[in-house]
């Protein structure tokens, strides 16, 4: 049991190292190494899940990584319900995607490098999941960002991929600064970095963080904003689709982007601490709590991304914006003090969104890297397995019962209606997003799979190879059924260890949402139905998008992603680039120019003046010497006053 988590953690790292050092030029062996590492990790995770002691005392193993004075950082692994769920998702979904990658990357000359990066990503993600303390989590956090950078830029010779990976890394870095400052603030205040200790302290004294409570919570949330691509740091995620599609599925849909949500659930005790601002802070901050900000940022992201998704034409970009929108949902749940539904939705989302991306990848490969949905169509007949699994995932995403997404999404909406912590505004946002989700997903499915083929590759497409087909089928199972696996009640053990929910049969589980919050269920189902219906009316058999003509300016805004990229570029030009220009100018003209060259110039001027004395005539020199001696003698021997 004691070596178990260590093996889970380090198996992928060993695979990455092994591939880099030995089998970089051998695609088959690299794939084998990578897949077996993640398989080992998955099997051991299942074992860990099964032997995990029933009442939830976390299992922790650690050693000291860094210790100076009062700063002590451990390197360890922590197994509790929260990390176990993530462990299973990362290794399970990850494993399926590893297998799928073997088919997707066939023939690419960088396959060895691809699998090395993929294994390295798995390691870093596990580091985030299993971390026992803030700094260890931050290390994993940065390494996850690195592997994402390497994989987005996998085809780095393409200008667009090279730009995208740079953008992703830098945007993430912006969030990470806040995260690191939050960590330092927490440490400076409470003197510990360890999650268990901090949670214990804050549980007994919720006001322990004093005046910095809200600030610390928001700073940590900055990290989550970067990695989970929340508004306004969301701009990197759609561009990240430049990476290979399995990477989009694993990193930019199922696991890494969900790490922000995981982080907030992991440090939920911090967000729950008594909100307070420093005395010097402006008065308008008083009513604002960290949780409120988290909720509304999530809500805005969900709505904005869903709106943009409606008018995208690239199959991966639609899914990317859908991911953003769902991540916004999860953030919203965290902000509503409902970490369990957030994690629940994270889990189901990982299944169905990974499935959607893998399906999209299958389509893209069959169509020889065509990504525009308006050049597809009629694929249902030609690729039945892909189409059916895609449909299952779509229904799950839209929240149609009894698919998994229904339960998790409903739990979030129910939390928004909760009289104590809920928020009417966020509930309306949630319902609107449910409508938009159903709308754009119906548009995607109808345009891609129905109708008639609208391009030559689409009319010749065939079902993909088994190594890519079977992962779809495997993932379709949890995408459909994960709602019944009582993930939420397992997670309850972590967040509410006292109030363990009683076990119940599958039927009770099925109707549970109806019993708990009938209004939420009904409204969201109506919204979803409306979404299906409008999209069906608009896009059935359509060959071009009818929406721009109907919506005009709004559609143009959606298509242009509401000009947020341009806005960001403009901001950066105004701030950092301008400052860099200024600093360079100062360095060149003031410091190296006026100051250094000024000193140099003065010295040289004096030298030039003195040079006139230097006539070169020997006798003049002698005369000066004689006069000098005479003067010295006069001073030494002359009359004294």
């Amino acid at each position, binding site marked *: 049991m004691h070596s178990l988590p260590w093996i889970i953690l380090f198996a992928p790292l060993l695979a990455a190292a092994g591939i880099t050092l030995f089998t970089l030029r051998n695609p088959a062996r690299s794939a084998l190494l990578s897949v077996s590492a993640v398989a080992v990790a998955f099997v051991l995770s299942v074992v860990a899940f099964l032997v995990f002691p029933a009442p939830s005392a976390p299992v922790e193993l650690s050693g000291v990584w860094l210790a100076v004075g009062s700063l002590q950082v451990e390197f360890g692994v922590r197994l509790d319900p929260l990390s176990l769920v993530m462990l299973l998702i990362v290794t399970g979904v990850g494993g399926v995607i590893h297998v799928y990658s073997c088919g997707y990357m066939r023939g690419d000359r960088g396959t060895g490098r691809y699998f090395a990066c993929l294994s390295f990503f798995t390691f870093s993600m596990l580091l985030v999941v299993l971390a026992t303390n803030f700094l260890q989590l931050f290390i994993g956090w940065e390494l996850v960002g690195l592997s994402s950078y390497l994989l987005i830029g996998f085809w780095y010779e393409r200008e667009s991929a090279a730009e995208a990976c740079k953008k992703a890394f830098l945007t993430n870095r912006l969030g990470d600064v806040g995260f690191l400052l939050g960590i330092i603030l927490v440490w400076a205040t409470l003197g510990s970095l360890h999650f268990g200790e901090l949670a214990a302290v804050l549980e007994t004294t919720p006001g322990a963080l004093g005046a910095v409570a809200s600030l610390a919570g928001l700073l940590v949330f900055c990290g989550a904003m970067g990695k989970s691509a929340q508004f306004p740091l969301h701009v990197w995620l759609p561009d990240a689709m430049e990476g290979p599609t399995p990477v989009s599925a694993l990193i930019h849909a199922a696991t890494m982007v969900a790490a922000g949500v995981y982080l907030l659930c992991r440090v939920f005790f911090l967000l729950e601490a008594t909100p307070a601002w420093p005395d010097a802070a402006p008065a308008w901050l008083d009513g604002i709590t960290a949780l409120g900000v988290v909720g509304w940022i999530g809500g805005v992201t969900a709505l904005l991304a869903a709106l943009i998704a409606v008018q995208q034409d690239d199959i991966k970009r639609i899914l990317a914006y859908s991911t953003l929108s769902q991540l916004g949902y999860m953030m919203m749940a965290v902000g509503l003090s409902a970490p369990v539904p957030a994690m629940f939705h994270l889990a189901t989302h990982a299944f169905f969104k990974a499935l959607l991306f893998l399906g999209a990848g299958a389509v893209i490969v069959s169509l020889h890297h065509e990504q525009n949905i308006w050049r597809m169509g009629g694929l249902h007949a030609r690729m039945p397995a892909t189409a059916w699994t895609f449909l299952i995932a779509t229904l799950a995403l839209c929240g149609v019962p009894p698919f998994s997404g229904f339960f998790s999404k409903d739990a979030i909406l129910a939390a928004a209606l909760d009289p104590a912590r809920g928020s009417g505004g966020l509930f309306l946002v949630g319902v609107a997003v449910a409508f938009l989700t159903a709308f754009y997903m119906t548009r995607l499915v109808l345009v891609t799979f129905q109708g008639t083929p609208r391009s030559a590759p689409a009319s010749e497409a065939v079902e993909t190879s088994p190594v890519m087909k079977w992962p779809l089928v495997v993932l379709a199972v949890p995408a459909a059924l994960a709602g019944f696996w009582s993930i939420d009640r397992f997670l309850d053990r972590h967040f509410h260890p006292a109030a363990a929910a009683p076990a119940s049969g599958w039927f009770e589980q099925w109707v549970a949402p109806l019993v708990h919050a009938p209004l939420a269920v009904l409204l969201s189902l109506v919204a979803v139905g409306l979404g299906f219906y409008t999209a069906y009316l608009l896009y059935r058999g359509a060959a071009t998008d009818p929406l721009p003509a109907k919506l005009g300016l709004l559609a143009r805004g959606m298509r242009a992603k509401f000009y947020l990229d341009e806005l960001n570029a403009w901001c950066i030009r105004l701030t950092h680039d301008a400052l860099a220009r200024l600093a360079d100018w100062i360095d060149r003209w003031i410091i190296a120019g006026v100051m250094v060259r000024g000193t140099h110039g003065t010295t040289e001027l004096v030298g030039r003046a003195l*040079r006139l004395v*230097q*006539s*070169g*005539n*020997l*006798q003049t020199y*002698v*005369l000066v010497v*004689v006069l000098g001696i005479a003067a010295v003698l006069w001073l030494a021997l002359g009359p004294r006053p």
Partner: protein
Amino acid sequence: MTAGLEHYLGVSALLFGLGLVGVLLRGNLILMYLSLELMLNAASLALVAFDRFNGTRNGQILVFFIITVAAAEVAVGLALLVALYRKRQTAQVEDLTGMKL
């Protein structure tokens, strides 16, 4: 009338002054050189005179050194002068201002 210290020193000062004027005013390097030797000899004369009237021997030893070094100096200096003359075809100090910056 016996010659006192002041007479010796007067001769020495006269010699030194002549030498100095020579160095300052004559343009030919050889003549400047001769004037320089004159000044050196004036200094030697003064040393010997002081020595004689103070009853010590140190000054005389110093003079021996001066004579020896002066001989070496003349050898090196004249050789340099000849070499310079061969190169520049002049020994006039006004023409030798190559060290000017």
